[in-house]
C-alpha cells in the first residue's frame, strides 16, 4: 500500500502542450503539497492545500493550476508547457504540519521533461 502515490512517474512532452499529474494519499492527512525539484536538487514549494482549500501559492506562474477534489487527492495541471518546467515534481502530505513531529510523506515523484 503506497502512502502517497503519484502518476505518471515519467512524462515527456513537447513545448506548448498541457499535462496533468495526479496525486493521492491514503494516510488520512489533512494537508497536501506540490514541490518542484530542479536539476540542482533544490526543493521548492509550489502549493499547499488543507482540507481541499488552497493555503499556499508560491509565486508560481498561473499556467500551473492545482485542484483538490477531496482531501486525499491533489492534482496539478500545467498549461502551455515550457522548457524551464522540466523538473521532478513531488507531491507530499502531512498531518497538522509541524505538530506531532511526523514530517512530510513524499510521493515517488514525477519526472517531467519538456522537449
Amino acid at each position, binding site marked *: 500500500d503506497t502512502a502517497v502515490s503519484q502518476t505518471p512517474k515519467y512524462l515527456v512532452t513537447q513545448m506548448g502542450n498541457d499535462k496533468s499529474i495526479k496525486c493521492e494519499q491514503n494516510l488520512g492527512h489533512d494537508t497536501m*503539497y506540490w514541490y518542484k525539484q530542479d536539476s540542482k536538487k533544490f*526543493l521548492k514549494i509550489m502549493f499547499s492545500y488543507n482540507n481541499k482549500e488552497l*493555503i499556499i501559492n508560491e509565486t508560481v506562474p498561473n499556467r500551473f493550476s492545482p485542484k483538490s477534489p477531496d482531501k486525499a487527492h491533489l492534482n496539478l495541471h500545467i498549461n502551455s508547457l515550457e522548457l524551464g518546467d522540466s523538473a521532478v515534481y513531488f507531491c*507530499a502530505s502531512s498531518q497538522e504540519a*509541524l505538530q506531532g513531529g511526523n*514530517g*512530510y510523506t513524499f510521493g515517488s515523484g514525477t519526472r517531467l521533461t519538456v522537449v
Partner: protein
Amino acid sequence: GQQVMQIPQYQHVQEGEDFTTYCNSSTTLSNIQWYKQRPGGHPVFLIQLVKSGEVKKQKRLTFQFGEAKKNSSLHITATQTTDVGTYFCARGRGSNYKLTFGKGTLLTVNP
C-alpha cells in the same frame, strides 16, 4: 528571505569515516526537520527537532539543535554505503503548512 543554509554542498568520504552536515539560519527557528533523499528517490523524513539544545539519536545518526535555535547538525558515525544520498534540513514556522528546504548536502561513500 527565510532560507536555511546548508554546508557543505558535497561531501565524499571513505566508508567507515564520520560525516557531518550543518544547517544555519539568520533567524530563530521554531523547529527543524531532516530528510534523506537517495539517488533517484524521494525525500524521506528522518526527524524533527523542536527544543533548544535538543539532541536525538537514530542508530549511527545524531541530530542536534543549537542552543539559540539558529543552527542544527546531522552527524553520521562510521558511514556505510547505504548512507549515500542527499541530506536536507527544512525549517518550519509554527503550525503553518510550509516547509522551506535547504539546498542539501550530497554524501557519497567510497567502499
